[in-house]
């Protein structure tokens, strides 16, 4: 089994806010991330797929196809967007990096040809990332 990882970057803004919390609780739980005007990140996305090497092509997956799927399903929807208002998954779910990784997994998992989705990793900053491997 060979694992192939493709990286991409996107920039997006978000607010961490739970409308069921009081303003004080939102401030206490989310701190600066509760700024109602939002704040942004340059996210780095790593999509890892796995599969056997095709003996004819030498590929696990056609990288061009993987790149197109990532653009169509993820980057076109999220890049340069305000996640809370412009991405359907986040109209009623807080766009934490955890939830972003899960949403990206759900967008990609059924769209791959040949290879199987193994992991979605989203870096919020160079020091902080989330891995999602699908439900156990």
């Amino acid at each position, binding site marked *: 089994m*060979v694992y*192939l990882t493709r*990286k991409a970057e996107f920039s997006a803004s978000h607010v961490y806010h739970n409308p069921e919390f009081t303003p004080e609780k939102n401030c206490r739980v989310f701190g600066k991330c509760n700024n109602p005007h939002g704040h942004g990140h340059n996210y780095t996305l790593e999509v890892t797929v796995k599969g056997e090497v095709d003996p004819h092509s*030498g590929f696990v997956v056609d*990288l*061009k196809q993987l790149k197109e799927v990532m653009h169509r399903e993820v980057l076109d929807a999220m890049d340069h967007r305000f996640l809370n208002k412009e991405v359907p998954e986040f109209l009623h779910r807080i766009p934490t990096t955890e939830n972003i990784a899960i949403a990206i997994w759900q967008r990609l998992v059924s769209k791959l040809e040949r290879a199987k989705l193994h992991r979605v990793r989203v870096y919020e900053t160079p020091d902080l990332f989330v891995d999602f491997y699908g439900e156990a």
Partner: protein
Amino acid sequence: MSDAENQSTYGKCNNPYGHGHNYTVEVTVSGQVDEATGMVCNLVDLDGFIQREVLDRYDHQNLNTLKEFAGEVPTTENLCIQIYEIVHRGFRQAHLERVRIEETMLNSFEYAGEE
């Protein structure tokens, strides 16, 4: 494959004059820490092995001209598997966990042996 199939499968990578990469290879080994040395294995030994058996073999070469790729396309997947097998067969001082190769800043490949 026909010329048309080669072109549609490999795109720019099918340029008959070839193209190059700066590959980065990561070799991950594991083991217990030796009480006397404090090391899993002596990095001098690992570095020496990789230099002799991997880098001297592949560095600054046209991979398609090497006997190692006489029967298969030198995709980074296949290169990763070859390097894994070289280290797995020849380096005994620690357990080989995986070989990872960065082909470009955006593409990387990993092989940890048969699952």
